[in-house]
């Protein structure tokens, strides 16, 4: 059986691994306005154009993308490649936004693995630290260091394959290949 994009396990990830993530994301009003309001963020720069004229002396012509949403999008663009086998986020550090992001901008992300390490009391998983850089065109708009707990192949592969077989058993049978 062919499996969509075999996900990395902890053992597959080494320091120095660089990934240019394939998909991009054009920021839309829903990303900014809906997700800002969904998350109780009351900064008007994300949802009231009139507020921009008195914000930073009118320096920004368009609503600014909420930094939390920018972070989620940048991290999200890396997940299919690097953390589909994540068990939990352990932390983030050095989160900066060197340039603003506006609705209509297309975000892309690249990652570089900085460190892989054992995590105390977790024989089944290891910690991966990677640096994410998100850009719009040639402009770097976001940088952050992510620390994430990733499954070990040694502990999870057999169980994951069994899960995959189970959820596809009915479909396989219906295609006459069971």
């Amino acid at each position, binding site marked *: 059986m062919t499996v969509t994009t075999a996900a990395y396990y902890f053992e597959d990830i080494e320091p120095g691994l660089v990934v240019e993530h394939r*998909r991009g*994301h054009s920021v839309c009003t*829903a*990303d900014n306005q*809906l*997700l*800002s309001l*969904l*998350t*109780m*963020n*009351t*900064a*008007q*720069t994300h949802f009231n154009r009139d507020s921009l004229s*008195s*914000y*930073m002396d009118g320096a920004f012509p368009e609503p*600014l993308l*909420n*930094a*939390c*949403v920018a*972070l*989620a*999008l940048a*991290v*999200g*663009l890396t*997940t*299919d490649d690097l*953390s*589909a086998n*994540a*068990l*939990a*986020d*352990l*932390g*983030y*550090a*050095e*989160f*900066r*936004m060197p340039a*603003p992001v506006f609705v209509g901008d297309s975000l892309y992300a690249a990652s570089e693995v900085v460190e892989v390490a054992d995590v105390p009391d977790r024989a089944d998983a290891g910690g991966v630290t990677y640096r994410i850089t998100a850009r719009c065109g040639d402009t770097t708009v976001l940088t952050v260091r992510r620390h994430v707990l990733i499954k070990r192949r040694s502990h999870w592969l057999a*169980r*994951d394959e069994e*899960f995959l077989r189970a*959820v596809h058993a009915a479909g396989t049978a219906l295609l006459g290949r069971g």
Partner: protein
Amino acid sequence: MTTSPISPTSAVPAAGRTAGPYHYEDFEPGRLFAHHWGRTLTEADAVLFATQTHQYQPALFNAAYAAHLGHRDRPVSELLTFSVVLGLSVADLTESGGPFLGADEMSFGVPVYVGDTLDATSVVVSRRESGSRPGWGVVRWRTVGTNQHGDMVVHYQRSSLVRRRPEETGADT
């Protein structure tokens, strides 16, 4: 560190006025803020946020897979937890306007599940006047998010450019 009495969001305003946001002068180091509202996370929140931001970690949108990983319920993205806790703090800390300068030392506590209720509390860590922008300062806060059992779910520090209180010219900001 000296601990000041805790400040609830937005002191009761004078009749006919909305309480203004806090400014640079209000952020004495050590001052505590008990942020307003709280937020119960629903399944719609969890799945909308995860899918809209490409969080392709299947436990966030697949109940059978979440059970396979050993979760008792659908877990919520740590980035949704962070976003809600920060969002709840905005009215007190940064609604007076000023760009986000950064967040550091973010780490997570107990997992958050659909149905949990989050609250946010912050303390002022430090402040300094801006050398390049008269009328503005840089403030750093530590914020902690907790669930309905009082367990820590996230904590982090963040910094922002914060406006000094405008002169009482009648012009409202």
